[in-house]
């Protein structure tokens, strides 16, 4: 029944759609927010029921009982443990992925999408099943299991709560806070795995509960008193050995000071590329030094509009013909920005590069109902409304989703997410041959078991109207993806590159 529930709810989510209308009013945001809330509720139900079923699976042959059927039979502890693990894996981890696979394939998922979605579903299920079985193995019946679950996870959420430590101790530096979050969250599964294995292999339930208490205590102490930063300084996958793969003169960097002490750095690489492949800087790390001897450590991240130029070049059929600028961002303390405003800095450090392939997904007319389909990706124009020199559009985008497939980058408080596919929308005015990049801000999104639905508002400014007086009649929307290589490829070591700054014009 649980499996049917998962399948039906996921297909229901996949089928949910906002009607095509002539406007992009508030209702679209309301709709996606309601869908998102509903999705989260369903996912919570899916996980809670999965957790209870895992506990019931453990309680089917309770360890603590002295009346269980398996006791007194020649079933060893290890054999029972392995049998339970196999049953849990098949019923609650593999079965949902297998049940959903036909749906994924039916909606155009590629093999890679299916693998990523299945891995995502299975990982989340494992995160629920292991604690369920661990608590089930520590209790004698369903009533005890429910009460202990409420008590243990209530205590865990209190111990892990952000507010508790903030009221008790001075806030530590951001990196230490991040380290605490990481430990508290990622210790849950290993801790529960240890408790589960211990309980099945030793049957010493008092010691098992002592381990639970130890884990809760360690969680609280970590949240309050963990003093070290254990997070790596760069993104995951940064090569340990730096390989010099470029010449100094291949790279040009410039900086634009933005509001709120943030800086956009443009890195222009003159590396030759193919017609649709680009060598892209993903991240950078190094030191800025000024002529007065002062210095600051900086880390560069992929900016919000990072791939726009590459995408534009692709649509214009210019790929590989000239150097491509890439937007990176960096956040610095106010005094560093002030210092940078007055004199140029010298950058010394590494740039992390990856090959990427850009692809035109499709093109669609600017008419409500028009759509682009490519594999699991489907973009539909829900509304397009021109008024006051602006063009407002609402796009519905569906694609494969796997939360574990998105590496997360953190640096100095700015969170940059690298999606599997960096998307860009461009408006192509084919008759005039001109185009304009359109930033696609999310109105909201919801995801469930491998499927993602995103509503995007596109708001084209009067500037664009001025450049394209015939739009939207003569315009078309082109969707471009830029997919970086899965693994980091190489780094360039840059020594003493002058990095002048310019103020962004309001």
């Amino acid at each position, binding site marked *: 029944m649980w499996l049917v529930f998962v399948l039906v709810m996921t297909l229901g989510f996949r089928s949910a759609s906002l009607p095509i209308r002539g406007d992009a009013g508030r209702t679209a945001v309301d709709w996606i927010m309601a869908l998102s809330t509903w999705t989260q509720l369903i996912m919570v139900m899916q996980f809670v029921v999965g957790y209870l079923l895992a506990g019931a699976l453990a309680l089917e042959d309770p360890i603590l009982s002295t*009346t269980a*059927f398996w*006791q*007194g*039979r*020649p*079933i*060893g502890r290890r054999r029972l443990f392995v049998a339970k693990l196999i049953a849990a894996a098949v019923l609650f981890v593999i079965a949902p992925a297998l049940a959903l696979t036909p749906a994924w394939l039916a909606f155009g998922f590629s093999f890679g999408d299916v693998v990523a979605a299945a891995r995502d579903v299975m990982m989340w299920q494992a995160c629920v099943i292991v604690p369920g079985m661990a608590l089930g193995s520590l209790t004698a019946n369903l009533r005890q299991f429910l009460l202990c679950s409420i008590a243990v996870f209530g205590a865990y959420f209190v111990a892990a709560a952000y507010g508790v430590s903030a009221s008790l101790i001075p806030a530590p530096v951001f990196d230490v806070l991040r380290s605490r979050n990481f430990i508290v969250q990622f210790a849950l599964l290993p801790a529960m795995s240890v408790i589960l294995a211990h309980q099945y292999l030793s049957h010493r339930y008092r010691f098992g509960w002592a381990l639970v208490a130890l884990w809760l205590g360690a969680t609280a102490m970590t949240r309050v008193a963990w003093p070290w930063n254990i997070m790596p300084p760069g993104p995951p996958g940064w090569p340990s050995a730096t390989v010099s793969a470029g010449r100094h003169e291949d790279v040009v960097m410039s900086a634009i000071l933005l509001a709120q002490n943030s800086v956009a750095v443009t890195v222009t690489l003159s590396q030759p590329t193919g017609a649709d492949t680009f060598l892209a800087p993903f991240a950078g790390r190094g030191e800025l030094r000024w002529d007065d001897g002062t210095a600051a450590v900086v880390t560069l991240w992929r900016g919000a509009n990072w791939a726009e130029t590459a995408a534009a070049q692709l649509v214009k059929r210019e790929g590989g013909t000239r150097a491509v600028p890439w937007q990176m961002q960096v956040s610095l303390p106010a005094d560093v920005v002030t210092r940078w405003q007055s004199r140029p800095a010298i950058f010394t450090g590494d740039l992390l590069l990856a090959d990427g392939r850009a692809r035109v997904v499709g093109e669609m007319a600017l008419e409500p109902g028009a759509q682009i389909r490519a594999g699991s990706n489907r973009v539909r124009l829900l509304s397009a409304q021109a008024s006051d020199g602006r063009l407002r559009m609402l796009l519905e985008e569906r694609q494969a989703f796997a939360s574990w497939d998105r590496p997360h980058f953190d640096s100095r408080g700015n969170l940059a997410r690298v999606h599997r596919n960096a998307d860009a929308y461009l408006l192509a005015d084919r008759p005039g041959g001109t185009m304009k990049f359109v930033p696609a801000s999310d109105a909201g999104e919801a995801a469930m078991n491998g499927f993602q639905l995103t509503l995007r508002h596109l708001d084209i400014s009067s500037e664009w109207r001025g450049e394209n007086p015939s739009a939207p009649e003569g315009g078309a929307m082109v969707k471009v993806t830029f997919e970086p290589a899965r693994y980091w490829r190489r780094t360039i070591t840059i020594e003493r590159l002058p990095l002048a700054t310019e103020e962004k014009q309001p």
Partner: protein
Amino acid sequence: MNIIETQHLTRRFGRMEAVHDLNLAVPTGSVFALLGPNGAGKSTTIKVLMNLLAPTTGTARVMDVDSRQLGERQLAQIGYVSENQQLPLWMTVRQLLNYCRPFYPTWDRDLESTLLARFALPEHQKLSRLSRGMLMKAALLSSLAYRPKLLVLDEPFSGLDAVVRDEFIRGVLEVSERGEWTVLVSSHDIEEVERLCDHVALIDGGRLRLSEPAEALQARFRRVEVTAASAEVRPQPAWVEWERAGALTRFVETRYAGGPTEAAWRGHFGEVRIVAHPMTLREIFMALARSGTASLATEATA
């Protein structure tokens, strides 16, 4: 040679002592009845023997292995049926047997068929739809079909009607006739196991009161009736359930040894009419239960 031995076995639950300093020996090949009232500590003792509970102090050895170390090899030779044992109720009888069979290399399919027919168990009926008596028979079948060297039955007859109880006992007897094995059966009612056992132990308040062969026990107990005994005669330590009703004096002799005992009676009562009746196990245990048995415990363990 004893298949089960406990040495100073004690098991506590918090402050409550369920079993106290128990020294028990179950001879190999015996049908051993562990008797005692409800709450006497019988089930706790059996659970310790089956490694379902750990001893608080002392040791228990089963098939020459410390009970804490009982593993798959030993358990494949032990059959365990308990009144409270949970069965996989979602299975049918056939599924239960098919499920159990691979665990036991000595599983005898002929014996399985014979017992299935004797117990009249509906093969394709789910266990959840069986009566309590049928469930116990299914559990017994799944514990007999591999011809265990040791069969442990913990209050197997509780709540069973006489017909089912008889079938149960006949099933055990039938298998016991076919090979060398030991049966340890606990019960609060001697009548239930009287036909089965050749060795009895009485446990009360967690303490062993007596343990000896049933034949020897019956040989040393007599119900004695004395007509016109002198009022001056006082009961002896070995006499229990002493009562006088008019000219008739009754008591139970707990150390009957034939001629010498009868001579001793003459010494006490003189030349009056004395009649000694043999007692059933049930009568012996009723007498012990009513009179208290503290003085006999020392004797039994000695």
